[in-house]
């Protein structure tokens, strides 16, 4: 590693400067520190080829990897009232929203796509951690409900990729009310007899885990994701001791019975397709056709 940083890096930087290429040509793995060629990292869905560390990815990359040929339609989500509490800390919430929107090009933290996975129509929601930490406010709650309604309309399974530090504090009690709100939506899926699959990604904590993220028919976690109710720092401050290695990580949740499986990113699609086809009539019919 030293050899790389001390010797190759300066040279590389010089090359980059000369060509005026973006400085993200190389990616340094957050897990092992290895430098990975960016193109290779992209092709590998942001997973380190050396240590298997799963870096956070956005909705676009998810959709590309999941839907057949990446083809899908974005579901239009309801426009909600911005900043209903006129919240202001050191910065105005309305300004934070503006920043997040210009940074991500998205309205809010939940993005929903409709498309096919191995031919089966599905509704897939992805929480975008890059939009205010994926936090759940009214927009995320409303988006979740709309996605569920679409799944019911299409009689399609619903899959959500969770990622959030929790509820969006700047919306106060209204963000807290999204816990019961989304829980009603989960129950609508149940009544419609549709599979609801939760894929927990890094990080999923707080109010999101205390509602829809823990109410799936099947829970899948990506390797090494932080998943829990209370944040590790809050726990450490409460119990005044250091937390054990791997605490609140996917593998820990599997061991404690909170998730069904831990699945690496590149095996997610085939796992989801298998689950869906086992849980739905359409999937079963498709298998019959295949067999005959």
């Amino acid at each position: 590693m030293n050899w790389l940083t001390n010797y190759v890096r300066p040279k590389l930087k010089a090359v980059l400067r000369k060509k005026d290429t973006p400085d993200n040509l190389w990616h340094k793995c957050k897990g092992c520190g290895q430098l990975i060629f960016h193109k290779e990292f992209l092709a590998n869905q942001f997973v380190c080829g050396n240590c298997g560390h799963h870096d956070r990815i956005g909705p676009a990359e998810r959709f590309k990897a999941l839907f057949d040929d990446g083809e899908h339609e974005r579901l239009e989500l309801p426009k909600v009232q911005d900043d209903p509490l006129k919240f202001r800390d050191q910065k105005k919430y309305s300004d934070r929203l503006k920043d997040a929107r210009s940074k991500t090009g998205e309205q809010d933290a939940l993005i929903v796509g409709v498309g096919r996975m191995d031919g089966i129509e599905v509704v897939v929601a992805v929480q975008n951690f890059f939009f205010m930490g994926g936090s759940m406010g009214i927009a995320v709650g409303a988006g979740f409900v709309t996605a569920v309604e679409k799944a019911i309309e299409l009689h399609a399974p619903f899959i959500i990729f969770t990622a959030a530090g929790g509820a969006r504090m700047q919306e106060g009690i209204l963000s807290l009310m999204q816990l019961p709100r989304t829980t009603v939506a989960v129950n609508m899926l149940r009544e419609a007899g549709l599979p609801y699959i939760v894929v927990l990604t890094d990080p999923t904590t707080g109010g999101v885990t205390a509602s829809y993220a823990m109410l799936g028919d099947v829970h899948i976690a990506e390797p090494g994701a932080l998943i829990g109710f209370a944040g590790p720092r809050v726990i450490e401050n409460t119990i005044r001791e250091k937390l054990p290695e791997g605490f609140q990580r996917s593998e820990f949740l599997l061991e404690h019975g909170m998730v069904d499986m831990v699945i690496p990113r590149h095996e997610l699609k085939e796992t989801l397709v298998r689950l869906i086809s086992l849980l739905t009539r359409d999937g079963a019919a498709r298998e019959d056709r295949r067999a005959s």
Partner: protein
Amino acid sequence: MITFLDFEKPIAELEGKIRELRELSGAEITVSISDEVGRLETKLDKMLRDTYGRLSPWQKIQVARHPERPHFLDYVDALITDYTPLAGDRAFSDDHAILGGLGRFKGQPVIIMGHEKGHDTETRLKHNFGMARPEGYRKTVRLMHLAERFSLPVITLVDTSGAYPGIGAEERGQSEAIARSTEACLNIEVPLICCIVGEGGSGGAVALSVGNKVLMFEHAVYSVISPEGCASILWRTADKAKDAAVALKLTAEDLQRLGIIDEIIPEPVGGAHRDPALAIEALSRSIEGALEELSGIDGAKLRKLRHAKFLAMGAANLG
């Protein structure tokens, strides 16, 4: 003697003066002293009314957390006859931060449950300061299903700074337990009346607050995060808790305006801790009214109404 809050210094001084005068006069109260006591008492009453009539959000937090504020067992003692506590989640243990059981409210069998904070060091430790572990939330699910099976209305009393953040709680699925409790609240086909009596702290409070009727005491608070927690994240210092308390809009008045709660229960002058009996009586009246309102509605409809109510949370434009 009650514990005075920092903003009650003038009230404490006045009360002290009145007490002194009374002691000074002993058994034999002279006319002039009794006049003076009377005058001071009028002044004290006005001072309490003024102070408590315009408490800041931060002061409300302090009142909601007041150590002598009535807690779950005080309410149960006064309101419930034949109280029969039920214990355990049938899976791991019995949580003492959330208590509950069968009993009669005004003669009618009900299930009542809620957070108990304790009132002295020993009981506070026993009840873990009202911070429940997953077993607490699994017990509430169990009790709600029991209520449904026997068509009993459910009353919840919410008073917690939040669910307990600990290693064991995480290992045993704190978030799943809270989510299931919220879900049980939404789905039971019996009347569900939720009362925020003190602190409504985040997910740990929501798990018991998804009712057909949500009632809230005048000086209770209900929030997505504690002002201290919010301040330390957004302002990067817990010293800004007062500012966070304002920004979070966590008072009963705010919550009624935002359409989160259905009714504000008035507190005695100077807060519930100054006259617990009066506060308990006010709560009793509100619960009775809510029960009466829901009594004619069949179970499936009650569930449907609850779903519609919480599905709409945040959908309205609040201007």
